[in-house]
């Protein structure tokens, strides 16, 4: 039994599909004969061209969810399609906030489990998924048993996105059925943080700081370095939880996955949950005063030293060399 049809949950950012949407479409193309997308919002017709270019022949359009958190209506719409006899072999879901909500809701509607934290897919008779464990030192391969579509929640940057040059996906309306009491959560207002420089998950250089910086006031060292390298400033969860920097800076399991050309980790211990978010970087530089810090096990260049000495000196050095 080959894999016939895969659906990809398509998310939108700045009036285009998100990078992970395109990554999932690309991978779906390599494992299945037919790739289709599911989208919501008021802009699906405009997304259809790019979704098609990356391999989706059809996009099911849930339409405007009117301020609701999308998990409930979008899962309802997908479950209705499936109940109507349109059954994919697998549904690929981005590991984002809304993606995870969707997967949890759909799982119960279909009475099918979910495989999460997926970073690879293997196509055989059925689809298997790969999951890094113990901070990425081992890979677990898992599979669904029993009938019904497999729901896979996949981490960003697990696959490279490549267009296939397809024509625009055909837009098919897939309205959400009434969801009753489950659908009460509403977004009243969105708040976006101002950002300078490249996006954290798109930058070719990421400079991240951790608790070793010693205090919120020292994060400016990270920002200045990131600025000099035309990169983005990242953080460990410890300093996000401590309120030094906003959550949007967090790299790791519950934060962003980054794969820059260079990742510079400053005063970060290298906990497993941090490593899974940055271990795929092409080059890793670490500065930590503890020579046994786990971050050094993944570093291409490790400096055993004090961030308060090394970072100011590096800033001066870079200014002098430019």
């Amino acid at each position, binding site marked *: 039994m080959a894999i016939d049809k895969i659906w990809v949950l398509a998310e939108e*950012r700045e009036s285009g599909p998100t990078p992970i949407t395109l990554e999932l479409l690309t991978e779906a193309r390599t494992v299945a004969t037919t790739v289709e997308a599911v989208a919501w919002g008021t802009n699906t017709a405009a997304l259809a061209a790019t979704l098609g270019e990356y391999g989706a022949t059809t996009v099911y359009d849930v339409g405007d969810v009117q301020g609701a958190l999308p998990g409930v209506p979008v899962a309802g719409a997908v479950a209705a399609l499936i109940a109507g006899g349109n059954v994919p072999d697998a549904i690929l879901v981005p590991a984002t906030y809304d993606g995870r909500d969707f997967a*949890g809701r759909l799982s119960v509607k279909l009475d099918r*489990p979910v495989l999460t934290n997926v970073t690879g897919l293997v196509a055989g008779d059925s689809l298997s998924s790969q999951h890094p464990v113990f901070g990425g030192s081992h*890979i677990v391969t898992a599979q669904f048993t029993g009938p019904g579509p497999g729901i896979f929640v996949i981490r960003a940057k697990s696959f490279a996105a490549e267009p296939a040059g397809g024509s625009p996906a055909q837009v098919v309306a897939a309205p959400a059925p009434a969801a009753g009491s489950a659908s009460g959560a*509403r977004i009243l207002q969105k708040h976006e943080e101002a950002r300078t420089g490249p996006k954290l998950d798109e930058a070719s250089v990421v400079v991240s700081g951790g608790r070793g910086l010693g205090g919120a006031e020292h994060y400016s060292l990270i920002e200045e370095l990131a600025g000099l390298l035309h990169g983005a400033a990242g953080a460990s969860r410890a300093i996000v939880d401590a309120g030094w920097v906003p959550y949007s800076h967090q790299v790791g399991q519950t934060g962003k996955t980054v794969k820059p050309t260079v990742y510079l980790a400053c005063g970060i211990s290298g906990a497993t949950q941090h490593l899974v978010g940055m271990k795929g970087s092409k080059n890793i530089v670490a500065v930590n005063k503890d020579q046994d810090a786990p971050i050094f096990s993944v570093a291409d260049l*490790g400096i055993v030293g004090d961030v308060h000495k090394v970072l100011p000196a590096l800033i001066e050095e870079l200014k002098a060399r430019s």
Partner: protein
Amino acid sequence: MNVVVCVKQIPDPAAPASLDPGTKTLDRSGKLILDDSDSYGVEMALQLASGEGDEVTLVSMAPNGETSGLRTALAMGAARAILVSDEALAGSDALGTAKVLAAAIQRAQADLVLTATESTDGYTGTTPVQVAELLGWPSVTFAKKVTIDGSTVKVERQTEAGYDDVESPLPAVVTVTAGVVEPRYPSFKGIMAAKSKPVDNVTVADLGIDASQVGAAGARQVITEVTPAEARGGGEIVVDDGDGASRIADFLEQLKVV
């Protein structure tokens, strides 16, 4: 107001983790402790349910009648606990766990259910939303601030770029991030009081759940293989002798990022 907090009891994350050679799932046979991620939910619940007649109930599913993690949360101030422990539950997947938690929550007449966004050992992050769907309730995930206004819960929910103000009618499930509040340390008095707080031990049958739906029997995912990942290694580690900065600058220059 009755606030239920789902708390997971997990192997100590500081101890080296191991996989059960048979099922290749995490070995949970040793002593278990309160998942640190859930201490934020417990603290949040104690703050929200601080009025007259308010109560915090814990719900946990764990093997071997484990209560040490529950005692920690009871010592923080929760009033009671429901513990689901049953041999039939070994090997449950997140959906099986959610079915059990949802049934246990129904016994507690909750107005609000708090959980962590993800557990430290399983980190599927899907259990809470599955619970909400099973109960037919709304859910708001990734809360970084939670307030109650009458029969409405107001949440600041993390997003990729910032946060959203979200409102939901109660009852609802809310998942809280670490850092949402500072969990209190149990006082000596709290620890003593926790010893006599009620823990309701229930089985799968007590919850009216068909044993074939949960545990290994009901799980519909299997682990087929565990392999070592490609190691990175081969890096150069040098002690800073005042030349650390120039070493980094050289390395960056070599990569043509400066």
